[in-house]
């Protein structure tokens, strides 16, 4: 009798939910104007859905009530991920069949899913096939053994978590402009981290020797961190066409259209290890941005000075191929490895122009530019 009663209550609750949808639906989302950089609300297709209600699709699945715990044990820092429960989107379907989100979080989450799915679809068109569906840990509980409950500390950010095969999306409190999760370029940047990780290392929890104390491996990982950010910036640009895709969310010096050189000081900041590994303050974003700006500068243009959609598509295709060709090992891998491999994949006439830029912008690592004849 008790079970019947519970079942009746559950059935009544479920009975008044709108029908779940799959495949492609038209939905009210927050999106970027394809012709420019402005964002606004509009109706757009949300595709590749297995379940609209649970925001689960071919390549992306949102999760709620998840938990990320950063602890310490005898082996070192330990990260555990509790994936939580399926998402519970609130929505209605209007007379035209358009999905209207039923509250603010559903509005944001639906737009977020669309941004990540679009990035995944574009990367598939250019040779990257995800080995598994990636989870999106939406506003997770974040516990750190030093700081405690980090939910009020870790805000206004988004990050790729290889261990959890997914992304962490945290609340937007401080940014008054476009929240990061609504920024198509930022979400493509985060998806780019997943692309880099899979194409370099496959379906693994972490990069090789990530916790190694060996100075050679530690330096290689510092170069890798910077490269990760640079390639992710390139993917964010290629998906949106905006070299300053972060700008609508955050005033920061990451505009790919503004050239920057990699200096001896930058190389020192990577290769001079701090005495205490836990005191590592290397910020890979600026260094990666230098690499991304260099690629933006030398990338062949078919129409005048701007990179067309076809040019950006070719950049994505060769990015995936270059990542697969890279060797990650101490003394071999540097921040110059990726642009060097890209230059190798260009046609001979294009390579000459690319190498001219590479030698100018990456002078401290010129000996590593083997596609350009080395030193």
């Amino acid at each position: 009798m008790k079970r019947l009663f519970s079942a009746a209550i559950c059935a009544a609750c479920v009975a008044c939910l709108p029908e779940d949808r799959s495949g492609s639906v038209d939905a009210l989302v927050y999106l970027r104007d394809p012709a420019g950089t402005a964002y606004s609300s509009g109706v757009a297709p949300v595709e590749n859905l297995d379940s609209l209600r649970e925001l689960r699709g071919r390549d992306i699945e949102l999760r709620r009530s998840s938990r990320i715990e950063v602890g310490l044990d005898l082996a070192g820092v330990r990260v555990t991920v509790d994936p939580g429960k399926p998402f519970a989107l609130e929505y209605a379907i209007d007379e035209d069949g358009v999905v209207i989100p039923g509250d603010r979080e559903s509005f944001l989450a639906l737009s977020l899913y669309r941004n990540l799915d679009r990035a995944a679809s574009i990367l598939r068109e250019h040779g990257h096939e995800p080995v598994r569906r990636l989870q999106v840990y939406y506003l997770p509980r974040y516990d750190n053994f030093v700081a405690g409950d980090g939910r009020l500390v870790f805000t206004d950010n988004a990050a790729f978590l290889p261990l959890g095969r997914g992304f962490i999306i945290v609340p937007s409190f401080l940014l008054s402009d476009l929240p990061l999760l609504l920024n198509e370029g930022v979400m493509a940047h985060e998806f780019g981290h997943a692309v880099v990780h899979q194409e370099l290392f496959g379906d693994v929890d972490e990069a090789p020797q990530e916790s190694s104390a060996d100075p050679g491996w530690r330096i290689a990982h510092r170069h890798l961190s910077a490269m990760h950010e640079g390639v992710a910036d390139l993917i964010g640009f290629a998906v949106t066409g905006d070299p300053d895709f972060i700008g609508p969310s955050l005033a920061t010096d990451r505009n790919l259209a503004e050239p920057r050189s990699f200096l001896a000081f930058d190389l020192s900041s990577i290769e001079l290890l701090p005495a205490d590994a836990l005191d590592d303050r290397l910020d890979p974003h600026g260094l990666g941005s230098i690499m991304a700006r260099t690629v933006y500068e030398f990338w062949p243009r078919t129409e005048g000075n701007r990179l067309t959609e076809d040019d950006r598509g070719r950049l994505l295709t060769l990015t995936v191929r270059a990542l697969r060709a890279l060797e990650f090992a101490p003394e071999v891998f540097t921040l110059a490895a990726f642009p060097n491999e890209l230059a190798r994949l260009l046609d001979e006439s294009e390579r000459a122009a690319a190498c001219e830029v590479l030698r100018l912008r990456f002078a401290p690592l010129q000996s590593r530019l083997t596609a350009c004849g080395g030193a």
Partner: protein
Amino acid sequence: MLRAALLLSMLLVTTAAQAEDFRVGADLSVFLREEAGGNRTVLPGLSLRGSYRLRPSIELAGLWMQAFDPKGRGPAEASSWHQRFAARAEFALPIRTSSLVLAAGPGVSLTRTTLFGDGEAIASTTLARFGASGALLFEVNLPHLTLRTGVEAFRAARRTDVAVVLGGTWPSRRAW
């Protein structure tokens, strides 16, 4: 419409019984709404209730709770008005001049949301969900007033909203 029907039915029943058996009340609450992503939004809430005392330790109560979530200041925002209607049985365990009250019964949640894009209202939805309402409360009986505090919960459509309440109830027609 639902609110009017609830209040009317209570008024009709009131005329047929003793004044002390009918009570009305109001609570202020901290409403913790469970969002789609599992996080909670904290909102101030207000609820009104009417109840009929069947026996000294059993009451039948109708409850209306509401909370308003205002539009924020970002480019993609929404304002929501949350309402909860519940009809439930309340069982009181007397402890001297106080009582521990356990309540349970069906309910309906009604949420009206307006989505804004760049400051302009772009769409509205009204979503109704059937569910279950419950509460654990502590009541202190004073001469003409019963103070109450505790936790209310409403479960519907894979969400559990919680409210911490503080308020009071009093006879609907005072025989003073």
